[in-house]
């Protein structure tokens, strides 16, 4: 592939990936409601968001659910990854390995339906708690995969050396292994957070009245058609994710340098 052709392919690829996102952000500043008419620069759609109680409430619910479920998912994922990486063979390890990975590939509608049926038969009232459980179940798989890879790449001899020098297994893990997988822990948490914040399908099945999430709120408005308010809230979400990604990229670069 020639250098010029390569650059053209890369350019076209990134225009395809980022073009629709750019259109969305530009349109959120369009005074006109029409996509094809530029009515001048305006921040009125952002201002109208401030008065939208339902969206604000949904945003709070989403952030709380994401914070709780990603914390749970990271802890459970860490336990699962340690068990899979360090405990050697145990009975039903294959079942455990498969079950931990399966939700990754399972259609979300199936997992959502299964969770809801379980909550109903367990007698759990649908609401914020079931929402958090649903999101933690989905995202712990992503956390496990990332943490398992990180644990595999760090040398168990270091932990053994610490134990030879008198550390308990727990001390050795916390003082030696944990710091070296800290970046993987952070990215497992962030990925779980982002997935929870983004999820529509599992949330629709598992949540109840009073715990409507932001994607559910956006979805109900999308069904009514394109609206500049959705463009505005979407742009804000994109900005938050963009800033977080840029900061973590900078942090990684500084660490390497």
């Amino acid at each position, binding site marked *: *592939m020639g250098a010029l052709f*390569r650059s053209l*392919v*890369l350019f076209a*690829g*990134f225009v395809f*990936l980022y*073009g*629709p*996102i750019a259109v*969305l952000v530009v349109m959120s500043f369009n005074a006109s409601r029409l*996509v094809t008419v530029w009515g001048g620069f305006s921040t009125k759609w952002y201002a109208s968001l401030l008065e939208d109680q339902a969206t604000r409430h949904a945003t709070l619910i989403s952030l709380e659910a994401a914070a709780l479920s990603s914390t749970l998912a990271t802890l*459970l994922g860490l*336990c*699962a990854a*340690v*068990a899979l990486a360090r*405990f050697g063979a*145990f*009975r039903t390890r294959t079942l*455990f390995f498969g*079950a931990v*990975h399966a939700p990754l*590939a*399972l*259609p*979300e509608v*199936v*997992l959502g*339906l*299964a*969770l809801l*049926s*379980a909550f*109903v*038969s367990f007698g759990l009232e649908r609401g914020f708690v079931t929402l958090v459980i*649903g999101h933690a*179940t989905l995202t*712990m798989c992503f956390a*496990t995969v990332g943490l398992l890879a990180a644990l595999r790449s760090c040398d168990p001899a270091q932990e053994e050396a610490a134990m030879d020098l008198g550390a308990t*297994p727990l001390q050795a893990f916390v003082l030696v292994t944990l710091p070296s997988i800290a970046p993987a822990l952070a990215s497992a948490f962030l*990925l779980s957070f*982002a997935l929870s914040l*983004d999820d*529509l*399908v599992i949330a*629709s*099945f598992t949540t109840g009245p009073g715990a409507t999430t932001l*994607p559910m709120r*956006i*979805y109900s408005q*999308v069904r009514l058609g*394109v609206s500049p308010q959705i463009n505005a809230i*979407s742009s804000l*979400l*994109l900005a938050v*994710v*963009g800033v977080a*990604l840029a900061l973590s*990229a900078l942090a990684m670069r500084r660490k390497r340098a």
Partner: protein
Amino acid sequence: MPRFSPGRRIVLTAPYLWILAFFLAPMALILKISLSHPVEARPPYEPLFSLAEGPALWLEKLQALSLETYRALIDDPLYLDSYLSSLWLAAISTLLTLLVAYPFALAMARAPRHLRPLLVGLAIAPFWTSFLIRVYAWIMLLKDEGLINHALMALHLIDAPLEIYATSTAVVIGMVYSYLPFMLLPLYAALERQDPALREAAADLGASPADIFWRITLPLSARGAVAGSLMVFIPAVGEFVIPDVLGGPQTLMIGRTLWSEFFTNRDWPMASAVAILLLALLILPLVVVERLRAEGEG
């Protein structure tokens, strides 16, 4: 697990119980619900087993297990059409994603070494942003009065708007766009790993660039292409958001049928049966994915 210390037991038991309670039990439950009769109640299906009833009643209940829902599912062409159309749309989307992603991944893999981490970062960054929002953005582009039609008409390339929005074409475009990062990563990994010395040796021996591509680059990236295709195909078959937001009322996909069976018709046994058959459909690709993953685990 007698040889495990108490600490280890806790580490294993916590995620194990969680997965048991909130994944394995729920999956067994929908299998059960799919075999029970719908009733007007809450929950809207006849409970099958209950520990309180004792084993004597279980046998009786076991005989009451019914394939009625599955029979109804096979008899109604809506479901068969949904399955076939899901498989078809997912297959086309996977193929198109592969065709779009291949040159893209190749260009990334052959870019100067110091640029590659940045390019990979940019290619997967959209995956971190909201899926729903990225799908929604396409409405503005694809609508009859949207940007693409507006631009094409302004350039006098077309006289009447292309009717893409609310069709299966829009769904395919949405899937290619949304799942592109899933295809890019495994392809890039496979292409980047290739030793440039192989291509140089082939060129020294007189192979043309086309020969080199078809006989070295492409075969060596086949595993990446298979892995990427499965990563796209499997979620695409069960996709709900894309057909619902970009598709029209006539766009049948099984995820959407399951959703309306549950939320609109409140037919739990039917929704569960649809889910079970969807899993049955995906079992082969899932097994292949697990095998690839197990090979990776070593």
